């Protein structure tokens, strides 16, 4: 615990970088996953292609993906964000698809029959009804990204991984412990927060 105690400000700064990395990646990932999830839920054939491709991307080892991305677009935060966005896709899209497919068909029938347009049905009926399940996907994706983002330090993208790599390089278990503990606390906090949100939107 000594490193965290003596270098509190540095740990906090790296934690801040870590949060930004995860948060920005998650937002971009959601913007992509929502429409893809809607398409996948609506169209069985498009759905199987989307899920197969994102599933395949998910199986690429993170270090290998980062190495490939560094070769293509260089070192730094942007590269790390691209990798995190790619990894989040499968989990987020599965959440959107499961959420939308789980919506009671009677709600959609009632909405259409009462004169909701297809768009109004999606935005005002299907999304709200699917929200708890979709948030479950966001929660799992967030926790995964908190863990994955530690590897980003390997390509100069900062974050708590910096402590892990420095600790390994200088044989400083205290530093490794400080980084690992901070990442774990962050993951647990995100998990609890999003569980709370899921409960709040459950009807």
């Amino acid at each position, binding site marked *: 615990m000594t490193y965290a105690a003596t270098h509190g400000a540095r740990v906090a700064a790296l934690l801040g970088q870590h949060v930004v990395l995860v948060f920005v990646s998650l937002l971009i990932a959601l913007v992509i996953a929502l429409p893809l999830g809607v398409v996948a839920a609506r169209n069985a054939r498009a759905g199987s292609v989307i899920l197969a491709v994102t599933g395949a991307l998910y199986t690429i080892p993170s270090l290998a993906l980062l190495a490939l991305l560094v070769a293509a677009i260089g070192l730094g935060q942007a590269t790390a964000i691209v990798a995190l966005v790619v990894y989040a896709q499968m989990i987020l899209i599965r959440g959107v698809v499961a959420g939308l497919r789980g919506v009671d068909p009677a709600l959609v*029938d009632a*909405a259409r*029959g*009462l*004169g909701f347009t297809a768009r109004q049905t999606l935005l005002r009926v299907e999304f709200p*009804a699917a929200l708890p399940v979709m948030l479950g996907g966001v929660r799992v994706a967030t926790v995964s990204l908190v863990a994955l983002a530690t590897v980003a330090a390997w390509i100069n993208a900062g974050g708590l991984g910096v402590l892990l790599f420095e600790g390994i390089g200088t044989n400083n278990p205290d530093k490794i412990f400080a980084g690992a503990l901070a990442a774990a606390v962050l993951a647990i906090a995100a998990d609890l927060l999003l569980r709370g949100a899921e409960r709040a939107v459950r009807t």
Partner: protein
Amino acid sequence: MGVRYANASVPAVHDVDLAIEAGQFAVLLGPSGCGKSTLLRTINRLVEPTSGTLLIDGGDVRERDATELRRGIGYVIQAVGLFPHYTVAQNVGVVPKLLGWEQVRIDARVDELLRLIRLDPARYRDRKPRELSGGEAQRVGVARALAAQPRVLLMDEPFAAVDAIVRASLQDEIARVHRELGTTIVFVTHDVDEALRLADRIVVMNAGHVVQTGPPAEILEHPADDFVRDLVGVDAETRRLALERPLIER
């Protein structure tokens, strides 16, 4: 008029030639799979006829925007389909809201409808659907369908999922609402007693076509064929006697 679903070898509905009078309580009666729900759903274009035309007030429904058309037609289904994230008041006011009514007018209309279906607005307005019993939920479903004063109300097995006592009281309510508002109602059921109890006119369907239409007494006394005779069944005489007592007394 007819409907044939893609990839189906036999049409779901065929050779239907039917006129329903304004203000009538018409009941489509038949066994499950006979095409009665499909026929009902052509009225608000949830299902499009593959042949023939369907007119409301002399106008072809296909010449009207489907969304616009549906907002002017009430729709009640067996599963109710109340929106779980909306309150009772928001559910009832949903079509007026789509039509762009002012909120004050929507609020007043919601209270009026809740009173019509005998749910105290003060107690029920702000409840969520999960806080309602099955019978209360379907009353709210009926109120939601009536909110924008539709001239036609479509009801697809609306009372099939509730127990017999609640069903009887819901039947009384809808008969009363029909008397009070004069809305044209097209009601689908497989329950012969329900049809006899509610209908001005029964449309008996089997295997996708209309077998017989007429007032309840006529269906009972002069079944057109063996199918109708079997459907109204051995209890025809008792049912005929029950019909002679006006609904309001039961």
